[in-house]
C-alpha cells in the first residue's frame, strides 16, 4: 500500500464513518421535533413522549461521536492534504468556519435538550428542537458547499499558476452547490427515517408490538416515504448536472467506455477498464442519452476519449452508482407497498416479511449514502479540485501515512464496537424499565 493510497484511504474511511453520525445529526432533530410536538397535543398518547425520551438518550451519544469524528476530519484536511489547504484555504475555508459556528450552537441546544427535561416547561423544551434541527441542517449545508466547490471550482482565477481575484461567496455559491446540497440533505433525512423505522420493525419481529413500536415504525417510514421520491427526482437532476459539468464522471458512473450516439442505459454490469467494456449489464438502447441529455440520439463521450491520466477508475464508481439508484427505487417500492396496504386495509402491515424488509431498509439507507459519496469522491479522481489540482499533488510529503491509516482504522473499529455495545445496553436498560412499567399498569 503506497503512502498516497493510504492517505486517500484514511480520508475516505474517516468520512465514511463520520457521515453516518452526520446524517443522524441532521435527521434526528427533525424526528424529535415531530414526535415531541405530537406529545404536546391535548390528550396525546403517552407513547409519543416516551419515544422522544428514548431517542434523546441515543442522540446524546451519537452526537458526541459525530463531534469527535468531525474533529478528526478537520485535522485530516490539513494533515493529509496540506497542498489542498494551501491552495483552497482562502477560497473555500469559510464554510468550514461557518460549520464550526453551526456546530457550536447545535452543541448548546443539545445540552439544553438532553439535560433540560425537568428544568424547562414542555413547550420550551420542545422549542429547543427547532434551533437544533436548523443548525444540524445548516452545518451539513455549509460542508456540502465545500464539496460541491471541489466538483465545480469557482470564485477565483488562475493566472500563471497563481490564485488571484478570490471571491469566497462565489466559491460557496458555485454551480454545484444547489444541486449537491439538496441531494445530500434529503439523504440525511431519508437514511435517518429508515434507520429509526428499522429499530422498531426489529423490535416487533421479536414480539414487542406495543403502541410505542408501531408509532416509531410509522413516523420513521413516513419520513422515509416523503424523502424517497424527492431524492430520486433530485438524484436525476444531479445526474443531468454531472452530464453537463463533469462528463467524464458520468462516463465512469455509467461504465461508458466508447463515445456513442444513442448510448444505452446499463442496469448492473461490471466495468473492465483493461478491456474497455462493461460486462453483464442489461442495456436499454438510447437510455443513457435520453436520461442525460433528454434525446435518445444524443452522443455520450466515453472514458476512452479522455487522456489516460485524467480518467477515474470506473469500477467502484459504476457499482456505487448502481447500488445507490437500486436502493432508491427499492425503498420507493417498500414505502409504496407499506402505505398502500395501510391505506387500503386501514391497519399497519405487520407480516414477518414486511417487518424484515423494513429492518433491512435501515441499513440500505446508509449504504446508499455511502455509495452516493463514493460516486462523488471517487468519480472526481484524479482531481481533488476538479480540473485544477490533482489529488496526488495535494497529499502531504510527510512519511508514515500507512501507519497513521492503520491506527485510525483500528480506532474507528474500536469506537464502532464500543458504540454498538453502549446503544444495545441503552436499549436493554429501557426495555427493563418498560417491563417494570408494563407489570405496574397491567
Amino acid at each position, binding site marked *: 500500500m503506497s503512502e498516497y493510497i493510504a492517505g486517500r484511504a484514511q480520508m475516505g474511511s474517516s468520512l465514511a464513518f463520520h457521515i453516518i453520525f452526520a446524517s443522524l445529526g441532521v435527521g434526528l432533530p427533525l424526528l424529535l421535533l415531530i414526535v415531541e410536538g405530537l406529545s404536546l397535543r391535548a390528550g396525546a398518547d403517552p407513547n409519543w413522549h416516551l419515544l422522544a425520551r428514548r431517542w434523546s438518550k441515543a442522540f446524546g451519544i451519537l452526537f458526541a461521536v459525530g463531534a469527535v469524528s468531525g474533529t478528526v476530519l478537520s485535522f485530516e484536511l490539513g494533515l493529509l492534504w496540506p497542498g489542498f489547504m*494551501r491552495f483552497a484555504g482562502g477560497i473555500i475555508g469559510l464554510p468550514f468556519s461557518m460549520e464550526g459556528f453551526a456546530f457550536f450552537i447545535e452543541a448548546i441546544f443539545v445540552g439544553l435538550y438532553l439535560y433540560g427535561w425537568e428544568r424547562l416547561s414542555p413547550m420550551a423544551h420542545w422549542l429547543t428542537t427547532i434551533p437544533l434541527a436548523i443548525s444540524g441542517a445548516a452545518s451539513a449545508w455549509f460542508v456540502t458547499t465545500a464539496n460541491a466547490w471541489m466538483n465545480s471550482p469557482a470564485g477565483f482565477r488562475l493566472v500563471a499558476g497563481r490564485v488571484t481575484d478570490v471571491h469566497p461567496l462565489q466559491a460557496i455559491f458555485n454551480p454545484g452547490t444547489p444541486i449537491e446540497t439538496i441531494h445530500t440533505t434529503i439523504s440525511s433525512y431519508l437514511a435517518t427515517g429508515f434507520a429509526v423505522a428499522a429499530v422498531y420493525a426489529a423490535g416487533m419481529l421479536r414480539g414487542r408490538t406495543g403502541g410505542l413500536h408501531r408509532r416509531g415504525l410509522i413516523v420513521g417510514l413516513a419520513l422515509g416515504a416523503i424523502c424517497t421520491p424527492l431524492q430520486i427526482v433530485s438524484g436525476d437532476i444531479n445526474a443531468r448536472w454531472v452530464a453537463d459539468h463533469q462528463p467524464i464522471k458520468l462516463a465512469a458512473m455509467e461504465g461508458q467506455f466508447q463515445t456513442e450516439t444513442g448510448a444505452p442505459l446499463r442496469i448492473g454490469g461490471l466495468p473492465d477498464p483493461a478491456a474497455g467494456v462493461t460486462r453483464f449489464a442489461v442495456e436499454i438502447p438510447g437510455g443513457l442519452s435520453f436520461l442525460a441529455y433528454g434525446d435518445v440520439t444524443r452522443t455520450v463521450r466515453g472514458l476512452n476519449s479522455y487522456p489516460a491520466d485524467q480518467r477515474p477508475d470506473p469500477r467502484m464508481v459504476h457499482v456505487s452508482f448502481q447500488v445507490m439508484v437500486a436502493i432508491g427505487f427499492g425503498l420507493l417500492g417498500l414505502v409504496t407497498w407499506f402505505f398502500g396496504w395501510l391505506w387500503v386495509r386501514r391497519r399497519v402491515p405487520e407480516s414477518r416479511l414486511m417487518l424484515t424488509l423494513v429492518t433491512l431498509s435501515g441499513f440500505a439507507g446508509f449504504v446508499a449514502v455511502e455509495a452516493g459519496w463514493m460516486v462523488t469522491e471517487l468519480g472526481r479522481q484524479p482531481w481533488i479540485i476538479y480540473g485544477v489540482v490533482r489529488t496526488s499533488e495535494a497529499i502531504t510529503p510527510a512519511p508514515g501515512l500507512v501507519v497513521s491509516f492503520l491506527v485510525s482504522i483500528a480506532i474507528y473499529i474500536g469506537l464502532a464496537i464500543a458504540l454498538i455495545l453502549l446503544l444495545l445496553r441503552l436499549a436493554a436498560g429501557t426495555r427493563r424499565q418498560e417491563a417494570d412499567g408494563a407489570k405496574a399498569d397491567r
Partner: protein
Amino acid sequence: MSAHALNLSVAAVLWLAMITYAVLAGADFGGGVWDLLATGPRARDQRRAVSVAMGPVWEANHVWLIFMITGLFTAFPVVFSRLAVGLYLPFTLILFGIVLRGAAFAFRAHGAGEDGQPSAWGTAFGIASAITPFLLGACAGSVASSRVPAEAGPAALFAVWVTPFTLTCGALALAICAGLAAAYLAVEQEAVSQDLAEDFRRRALGAGAAALVFAVLALVTGLGAAPGLIRGLLAQALPLTALAFAAAAVAAAAMLRRRYLLARTAAVAQVALVLLAWAAAQYPVILPPDLTLDGTASPPESMALLLGTFVVGALLLVPSLILLFRVFKGRNPAAGRAVT
C-alpha cells in the same frame, strides 16, 4: 479597514480563541490528569469531582479548537499547511489523543462506567488527557524555536519537535494545565467537602512548583534554542512577561492561604498572559523564522467575510450561551446525574 487592520483583527480573534481553549480545555486536560492520579482514601470522590466538573462542557470547550483550526486554514492557509507538514507526527498523536479522550469521556458519561470507579475508559481518558497538553506544549515550543521547516520536504518526523527546549515547553504546558484544573476543582469542592478541597489544594501547589521549575528550565534552554523568543519576551513583551510571573505569584500565594477563587482567577490570568506575551514577543511573525502576518494572509475579501462570520456567529452564539448558563444557573447539568 486596511488589509493590515483586517489581518490583525482576524489574527487577534484566533489568538483569543486559542487562549480560551487553553484556559477551558486546559483545565479539562488537567482534570483528566487528576483523574489518573486520584490517590488516598478519597480517590473515588476525587474522580467523581473531576467528572462532575466537566459534564457536557467538554463539547463546548473542544469547539474552540475546531474554531481555531478552521479559522487558521481560512485566514493563513500557508501557515496552516506548513504546520501540518512540519508537525505531522505530534499533530496526529494529538488528534488520536483527542479522539480517545472524547470517546472515553462520552462513553463513561453516558453510562458505560460506574462513576468514580477506576475503569479502562477512565485510565484511557487520563492518559490521553496527560499526553495531549504535553504534545501541544511541545508543538508551541517547536514553533517558537523556529524548528518548523521552511520547505515542504519529507519532514524529519522527530527532529522538528523533540529538543530539550520543546520537551520542557511540553512539560510546562502539562504542569500549568494540571495546576489550573486543581484550582478549578478546589473552588468547586470548597462548599462540598473541605477534605477534597484540601486534596486539590495540595495538588495545585505541587503543579505550581513543577510549572515554576519548567518555566526556568525553558528560559535556560531557550537561550540556545530560541534566542529570538527570549529577547522578544524580555524586550518587546516585557510588561506582559512580568505580569505573567506576577499572576503566577498571586495564584501561588492565594492557594497557600486557601483563597481558592482568587487563586483560580490568577491561574487563568497567568495562562492568558503567557500566551499574550508569546504573541507580542513574536509579532509580526506568525510562524518563525520567516512567515509574517501580512505575508501569509488570505485576500482582503476572504478576511473581511471571515471577520463578518465571527461577528454574526458571536451574535447567535452569545445569547445561546447565556440561555444555557441561565437554564442551568452555571451548575453543571450532568452534575445531578453523575453524582447520584
